[in-house]
């Protein structure tokens, strides 16, 4: 891997390519937040925030913050032309009605069936689901951005989740620093590998079988 390039940046840059002009997109906390930085300037999208904004924009300059105007992570934002504010029922009505074209979320585990576990580790970490269940279950497309493996090297992409699910069969695509995987009816398809890894390395690092097409694209 390139020296000085954080795995987070690799993942965020690749995830940004999935976003198309005109989409309504919700970015989760962590890596997903970085995705906006890599959007092509000719692409206009409406970012949705659970706390009641459609059309949130970049961070304000220091000193220009309105402490009441924040993203769902609590950090000050601006808004783009066409933005609107609304209460939390409308924020989640937009989600529940299926109007979010894409949600980019983190994961603790993803199964080959597209099951997602990302909010609770019973007995250890019980922070509450926040909006994760609504987002995972109801978005038109759910993209998971995550490191390919846990710190101990164990796979986060598995045959079957061991943690309680956020939502069953909700994930469409997994983007890691090693690969881009698509969740298909019959399992995981290896769409792309990162230039620093081989197909075999990705297969070994993954806890579920991968379908490997004849030609696998390479991403940076």
């Amino acid at each position, binding site marked *: 891997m390139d020296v000085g390039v954080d795995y987070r940046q690799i993942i965020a840059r690749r995830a940004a390519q999935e976003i198309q002009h005109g989409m309504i997109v919700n970015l989760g906390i962590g890596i997903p937040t970085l995705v906006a930085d890599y959007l092509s300037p000719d692409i206009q999208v409406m970012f949705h925030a659970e706390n009641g904004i459609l059309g949130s924009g970049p961070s304000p300059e220091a000193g220009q913050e309105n402490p*009441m*105007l924040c993203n769902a992570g609590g950090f000050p934002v601006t808004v783009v032309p066409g933005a609107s504010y609304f209460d939390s029922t409308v924020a*989640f009505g937009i989600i529940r009605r299926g109007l979010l074209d894409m949600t980019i979320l983190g994961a603790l585990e993803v199964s080959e069936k597209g099951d997602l576990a990302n909010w609770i580790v019973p007995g250890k970490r019980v922070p*509450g689901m926040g909006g994760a269940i*609504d987002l995972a*279950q109801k978005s038109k497309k759910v993209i998971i951005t995550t490191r390919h493996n846990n710190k101990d090297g164990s796979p986060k992409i598995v045959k079957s989740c061991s943690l309680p699910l956020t939502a069953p069969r909700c994930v469409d695509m997994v983007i890691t620093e090693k690969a881009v995987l698509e969740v298909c009816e019959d399992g995981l398809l290896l769409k792309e590998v990162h230039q620093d890894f081989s197909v075999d390395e990705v297969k070994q690092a993954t806890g579920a079988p991968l379908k490997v097409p004849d030609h696998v694209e390479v991403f940076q």
Partner: protein
Amino acid sequence: MNHKRMNKIGTLDQAMEHFYSGMTLMFGGFGGVGNPPSLIQGILDRGIDELTIIGNDTAFPDIGIGRLVTAGRVKKVIASHIGSNPVAGELMTKGEMEVEFSPQGTLAERVRAGGMGLGGILTDVGLGTIAEEGKQKVEVDGRTYLVETALTAEVAIVHAKKADSYGNLVYDTSARNFNPLVAMAGDITIAEADEIVETGELDPEEIVTPGAFVDMVIPSRGVNWTWMWESTTDK
């Protein structure tokens, strides 16, 4: 009394007469933004405890509603997450504070349902997860939904940008969040406002919470904590 029905402006002291230990309290806000600072300070100062609090989240240990949690005033929380407040997590783990979670969109609808005088709502969010545990299910047109019950509270507290004397409320950008929902769901609703204007000065089109839902308006003394992003920036 009759007078107060058209002019609802009061003081923090008058507001605090409605608060007592052991009560159920609903609060507006999301990650501290929109939590009413002066009313929270009033609760702290008057030693009110054993609270059941209902709202989106427990903010941060030194911010907003999180200050009540940190001060050990909270017996039970109904929220969508407590992730930004490690003190809340510790108290829950030690069994010193009970926590009940709802998915965020479901929680918002439960509060609204209470405010609207409904018994609850039907949603399929959380089906197939532990969020469905212990919940009644209903079939509608062959599809299964969870029955998510309405929430109300003895007192609801909200933070408005502007209020008029009748209690009509306007919020500040994303500080709207749970505030208009909570404002409807209190048996008594108390709003603190950054600015209080005379009745008639707000445009009827801009009012988000009609005064019918509001029992008292007090002037806000403003946020008395440092935001996380301020401390990050300072370093």
